[in-house]
């Protein structure tokens, strides 16, 4: 027992060093395109985690992630945009006087974006979460669209359909994006392992029983939803900073499906699953991009290869997952050192049954 604990601590320390070294290496040596993709993976991890907190751990079916992201993204875009650039960006209609001279640093703007997204989550959650059932999905879907339409039409604040560009580039640095996503990962893990996290899971398992155990359902559902909204806002802020530009079209509700795919693939209710799936889905979307380019073999153009084909393949992959791995990669379990070592021990046992027995005895 104690040996295992020691082993786990040592492994964790090694992992932390390796991750830091890898980030350091990637940041300086990899080309800008790959770094950008890796940053996007980290940001998608944050938003995937926020969605898994709501959908996977608390069992609420929310489809509002794109809306929360948009709020975070626009908050960062508006408040970090340098003052001297504002008139060139807002050339159709000058920026609203109330905010025209407010400039925030990246981190305060990011947190403010999270807070705004959290407030929005409260405003939708408070009326809807009193009801039992899946009304939340409909309400959040509508919310996402409302946000997008608001962004398109609130010209003096959001610059309307033109969007905001020239956003200072902060997230395209692996220390920022990975640093913040690791902080979010740690915070959500701690939350899940606290008494409140257990209550979220209890609500997912059986809300009637949870209520009979003295748990105020409404309070805890709203809590989970607001925290999820907050972190999605943070993720959205990083996203804006990474892309350097935001416009309402980026935040179509289809964006939410990327995160839905991430949590379904990783496992509803698994933090490590979400992290793994974020990298697979984000990386996969990039790799599959090759299918959108025309392909010519021996002078003959294969007609399937045209824009949109990658999404077809992606959808087929999703169907395969849903059919054969209904619980996703991790189900509701988490990666842990014990699990990993047991896994290796099992593989070892398969290949050499004799030595495995001795190994097991030790």
């Amino acid at each position, binding site marked *: 027992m104690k040996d295992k604990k020691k082993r786990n601590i040592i492994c964790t320390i090694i992992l932390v060093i390796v991750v830091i070294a890898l980030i350091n290496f990637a940041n300086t040596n990899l080309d800008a395109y790959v770094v950008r993709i890796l940053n996007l993976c980290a940001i998608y991890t944050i938003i995937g985690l926020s969605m898994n907190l709501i959908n996977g751990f608390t069992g609420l079916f929310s489809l509002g992630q794109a809306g929360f992201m948009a709020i975070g993204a626009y908050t960062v875009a508006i408040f970090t945009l340098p003052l001297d650039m504002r008139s060139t960006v807002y050339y159709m209609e000058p920026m609203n006087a109330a905010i025209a001279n407010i400039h925030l640093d990246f981190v305060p703007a990011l947190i403010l974006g999270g807070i705004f997204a959290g407030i929005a989550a409260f405003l939708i959650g408070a009326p809807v979460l009193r009801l039992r059932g899946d009304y939340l999905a409909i309400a959040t879907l509508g919310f996402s669209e409302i946000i997008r339409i608001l962004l398109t039409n609130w010209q003096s604040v959001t610059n309307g359909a033109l969007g905001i560009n020239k956003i200072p580039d902060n997230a395209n640095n692996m220390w920022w994006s990975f640093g913040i996503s690791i902080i979010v990962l740690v915070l959500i893990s*701690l939350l899940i392992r*606290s008494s409140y996290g*257990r*209550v979220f899971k*209890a609500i997912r398992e059986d809300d009637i029983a*949870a209520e009979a155990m003295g*748990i105020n359902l409404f309070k805890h559902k709203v809590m989970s939803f607001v925290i999820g909204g907050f972190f999605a806002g943070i993720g959205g802020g990083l996203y804006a900073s990474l892309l350097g530009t935001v416009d309402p079209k980026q935040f179509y509700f289809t964006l939410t499906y990327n995160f839905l795919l991430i949590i379904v693939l990783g496992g509803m209710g698994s933090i490590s699953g979400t992290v793994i799936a974020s990298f697979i889905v984000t990386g996969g979307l990039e790799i599959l991009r090759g299918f959108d380019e025309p392909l010519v073999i021996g002078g003959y153009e294969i007609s399937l290869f045209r824009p949109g084909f990658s999404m077809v393949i992606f959808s087929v992959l999703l169907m395969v997952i849903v059919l054969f791995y209904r619980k996703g990669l991790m189900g509701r379990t988490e990666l842990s050192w014990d699990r990993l070592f047991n896994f290796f021990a099992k593989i070892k046992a398969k290949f050499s049954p004799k030595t495995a027995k001795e190994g097991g005895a030790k």
Partner: protein
Amino acid sequence: MKSKEKVIDQVIDKNVVLRTENMTMQFGGVVAVDNLHLTIREHQIVALIGPNGAGKTTAFNMITGVYTPSSGKIFLQGEDITGVSPDKITRRGVARTFQNIRLFKDLTVFENIIIAKHFSMKSNVFSATLRFPGAIREEKRMREESEALLERMGLADVRNDVASSLPYGQQRHLEIARALATNPNLLLLDEPAAGMNPQETEDLTASIMQIRKDFNLTVFLIEHHMDLVMEISDRIYVLDFGQTIGKGSPAEIQNNQRVVEAYLGVDDDAEN
């Protein structure tokens, strides 16, 4: 004037834990429970019996706040709790189990128990997440209390098992343990012996008696196993199509002609 009446009321009913007055539940045109008057005194074991569809579980659901009665009042220790939400009623000391077991299936036995302690937690979500000293203390207290309860209920061996993996009888047992984890005064058991064999039923009977003694509880239960009901009940209420057709001690119920006709008579025939 009114307060004086109330004081007198409390003096008279000092040891009444639960009282319902004209408690009625109507679903559309169907009267599921009609004018039910219950009086449950401290430390009693009271049974609610009746054929299927008599309205027993509906009565439970009104007492625990799942339904608000169409009319009538419910008093817990003299205080009106009609229409109060289920979580608040639990916090006032009424715990329950369910007819169809409702455990947190994918969670461990230990987690099932400790979740029932959550409402006693004063730390907010930030201090719990960031592990502030106060939250750590509370978590430790909740863990110790849960461990002690598991030990007491004989579930310590399976503490890390997933609830749904337990055998059926043990799942029912865990549900009772989970209800006890909320520190109730009044325990409502909805068919605790459903699906149990005679041996298990006997164990359960002994267990309910023991629990009442150890936790100083009042027990109100719905049950179909007549052996169990007649053995442990101090008082029995009989419902049929929402109507109260009998109340009294086990002996009185057994000799109540109306009850025997409606309910026990059928049972006797079946045995012959």
